[in-house]
């Protein structure tokens, strides 16, 4: 913490985990942006012979309906990043708002917020998402992302609260308070800079969590009704007997991409943690 920018970049580049993680994520981001231009087939159109294995014409083969799997894949990737971005941002924002307020104010405010957090934390997110989504007849990626973000904040709030607690009683914060610096100035001038690294880690985990949650929701048939996503691809593959028919190219790419993206995010997180916290660096 408290690293200079150049110093940060130096350690960041030296960290192998960070290099690997960031490279994988960037690779998939580029694929999600460029991919749709690489294929001439719309994702949901029936273009070719059914259940065609991967070929030069169809890189990832076709589905049982003759849709191009590669086209579905790259469009699904885009949806994945949208969900991660929106869901992760909302989840992190709420987590910061609630956790920070509780940790900084302390006392009664903390008691109440902490109680609420603990209660919401127990209720399984997916169960709530299931019953909300079950009653929404038309669902888009945006609705899904917002719902995921709105239910994902509790653990972040708890973690940020604990972090704020420990920062609030540091000597330099006391010193600032004693010299009559205003609350807002203490929060943004003294505490926030020391929390930035931590918040970045929280955001990455929220992003990954949103991606996994969306995949689960889509897979059980409660995802977006109007587009394609990676979870939906696996859902269709299971529903239309890709397993017994051996159409592995239908369900392997979407799951592989999610695993790679989320895994890379986790590894990035560990790498960042090591950069911020010298104690953890490999000896």
């Amino acid at each position: 913490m408290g690293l200079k920018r150049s110093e940060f970049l130096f350690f960041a580049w030296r960290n192998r985990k960070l290099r690997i993680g960031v490279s994988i994520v960037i690779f998939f981001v580029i694929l999600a942006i460029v991919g749709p231009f690489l294929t001439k087939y719309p994702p949901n159109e029936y273009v070719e012979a059914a259940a065609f294995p991967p070929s030069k014409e169809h890189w990832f083969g076709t589905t049982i309906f003759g849709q191009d799997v590669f086209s579905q894949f790259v469009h699904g990737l885009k949806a994945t990043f949208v969900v991660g971005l929106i869901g992760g941002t909302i989840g992190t924002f709420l987590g910061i708002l609630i956790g920070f307020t509780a940790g900084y104010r302390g006392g009664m405010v903390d008691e109440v917020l902490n109680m609420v957090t603990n209660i919401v934390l127990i209720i399984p997110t997916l169960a709530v998402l299931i019953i909300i989504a079950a009653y929404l007849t038309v669902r888009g990626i945006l609705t899904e992302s917002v719902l995921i973000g709105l239910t994902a904040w509790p653990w972040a709030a708890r973690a940020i609260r604990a972090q704020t607690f420990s920062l609030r009683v540091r000597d330099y914060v006391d010193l600032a308070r004693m010299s009559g610096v205003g609350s807002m100035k203490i929060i943004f001038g003294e505490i926030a800079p020391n929390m930035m690294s931590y918040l970045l880690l929280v955001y990455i985990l929220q992003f990954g969590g949103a991606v996994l949650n969306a995949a689960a929701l889509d897979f059980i048939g409660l995802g977006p009704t109007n587009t394609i996503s990676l979870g939906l691809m696996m859902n269709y593959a299971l529903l239309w007997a890709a397993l017994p028919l051996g159409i592995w190219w239908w369900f392997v790419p979407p799951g592989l991409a999610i695993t790679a993206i989320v895994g890379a995010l986790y590894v990035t997180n560990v790498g960042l943690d090591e950069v911020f916290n010298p104690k953890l660096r490999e000896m």
Partner: protein
Amino acid sequence: MSRYLGRKLLIYLLTFFLAVTIDWLIPRLMPGDPINVMISRLGPRNPQEVQLLREYYLKIFALDVPMWQQYINFWKSVFRGDLGRSTLFFPRPVLDIIKASVPYDILLLLPAILLSWFAGNNFGALAARRRWLDNTVLPLGYILTATPYMWLALLLAWALGIVAGIFPIAGAYSFDLRPHLSWRFIQDLLLHWFLPFLSLFMVMFGGWAIGMRNMIIYELEADYSRYLEALGAPQGLIRRYAFRNALLPQITGLALQLGTIVAGAVATEVVFAYPGIGNLIVQAIQNQDYFLIQGCFLFIILGVLLANLLIDIAYVIVDPRTRLGMTGEAA
């Protein structure tokens, strides 16, 4: 101890209250009217029939009384164990259907959770600060914990079920068998159980192994470890102390992971058509069986609360600080 558990119990009671309220509220807040959906599915031919059906449904679902009355009635029926009747499996009561599914959830989840926790923790502790093991276990752990449950389930079903043909990939037992106590049935049950168990086990294992590995590294940096080291204590002893201290957050972690485990169980059960509550709730959604959805939600919450309570009791047994009234780290 009573203060610690009392506080927890209060939170669980409030959680249950909130969950029941959500269960009641969400269908009423949502755009669109479930009753309209049900009416349109019956395909009435004229407005008179629509009106008749609407009145009928309003009456049997007790929607013809004021909101507050509906809410109180909902609570009453929850306590009576009356969760309504399923439309999908009409006329079976929701409670009966759920009761028939619960044993399969226990059969699947209890071993998967406990064994993965046990194995993951021991493996992670073994790997920490051991270069060769760490370099293999750590990446593997990250890949496993990032894997969506249903994808691993699909892969296992395809590889071991279809290609290798060793395991069946659907149901809890063969279609030509009825549940009864015989060697043949138990064998069949276990054969169907193995793949869903394995896929849940593997994903969870990754998470526990990484968590423990990181905790041990933190603990080995702690003052007491350094002190022991300076005294010349053997590495094995220091590691044993570190393991016991690292275990506490892993127990709390188990409680925090329950939500994710529920999600994983639902997805896994869907892949293998395993007849637990996860599979049931998805079927209920596909068929817009609202009472069944509500009932499944309540049971999932009850299960999670019960698991939380058991974990708390385990925590009190393991961590003496909670018994002495020092609440320890988890409040």
